[in-house]
C-alpha cells in the first residue's frame, strides 16, 4: 500500500509538472511556474524510476532498506539537520546585522524574523518531544 502511494504521488508530481510546463510554454504563466513544473516533472520521473528499480532489483532493494533502517544513518541524518539548523540561525543572525549596517532594513528584518521563527519551531518541537519521550 505504501509503495502504491509512492507511485500515485510520483504520477501527481509528473502531471502537475507537465501542466505547469505546458502553461509556461503557452505563456499563460511566467517562467517561475514553468521552472517549478520542470523540477516537479524531473522529481516525479526520478521517483518513479527509483521505485521500479526498487521493485525489480532485489540487491538494490536490500541496499536501500539497509541504508534506510541503519541506526547510524538515522543518527547522521538527525545530526545533519541539527547542524543545518544551527548554521541557519547563525547565518541569519549575522546576515541580519550586516544587512542592517549596509542599510537594507527590510532584508535585515526578514533575516531577524527567520531567526525568531526557527527558534520558535525549536521550542515548539522541544515541548512536543518532551511530552512524547
Amino acid at each position, binding site marked *: 500500500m505504501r509503495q502504491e502511494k509512492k507511485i500515485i504521488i510520483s504520477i501527481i508530481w509528473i502531471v502537475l509538472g507537465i501542466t505547469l510546463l505546458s502553461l509556461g510554454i503557452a505563456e499563460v504563466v511566467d517562467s517561475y511556474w514553468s521552472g517549478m513544473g520542470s523540477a516537479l516533472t524531473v522529481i516525479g520521473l526520478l521517483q518513479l524510476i527509483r521505485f521500479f528499480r526498487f521493485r525489480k532489483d532485489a540487491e538494490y532493494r536490500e541496499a536501500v532498506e*539497509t*541504508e534506510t*533502517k*541503519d*541506526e*547510524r*544513518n538515522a*543518527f547522521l541524518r538527525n545530526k545533519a539537520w541539527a547542524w543545518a539548523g544551527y548554521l541557519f540561525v547563525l547565518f541569519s543572525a549575522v546576515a541580519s546585522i550586516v544587512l542592517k549596517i549596509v542599510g537594507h532594513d527590510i532584508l535585515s528584518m526578514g533575516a531577524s524574523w527567520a531567526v525568531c521563527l526557527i527558534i520558535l519551531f525549536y521550542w515548539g518541537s522541544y515541548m512536543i518531544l518532551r511530552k512524547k519521550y
Partner: protein
Amino acid sequence: MKNRIEAIRKTRGIRQEEFAKALGVSRQTISSLENGRYNPSILLAYRIARYFEMSIEEVFVFEEEDTQ
C-alpha cells in the same frame, strides 16, 4: 565506549560485510563501531552480543570517562 567487536569478529573469521548483513546495518556502521567513532544503541549492542553469543559486557568495555 571501547569495544572488542573487531577482535572477536576477526578471531571468528567473519568479514565486515557478512557481519553487517547479519545485523541489518551498513558496512560503514560496522567500521565506525570498530573504530570507536560511533556508539551503538542498546538494541544494536544487544544484537551484536547475541550474534557473538556473548554478554554485552564481554563485547563492550564501559569506562567512567564515557559518561563525560
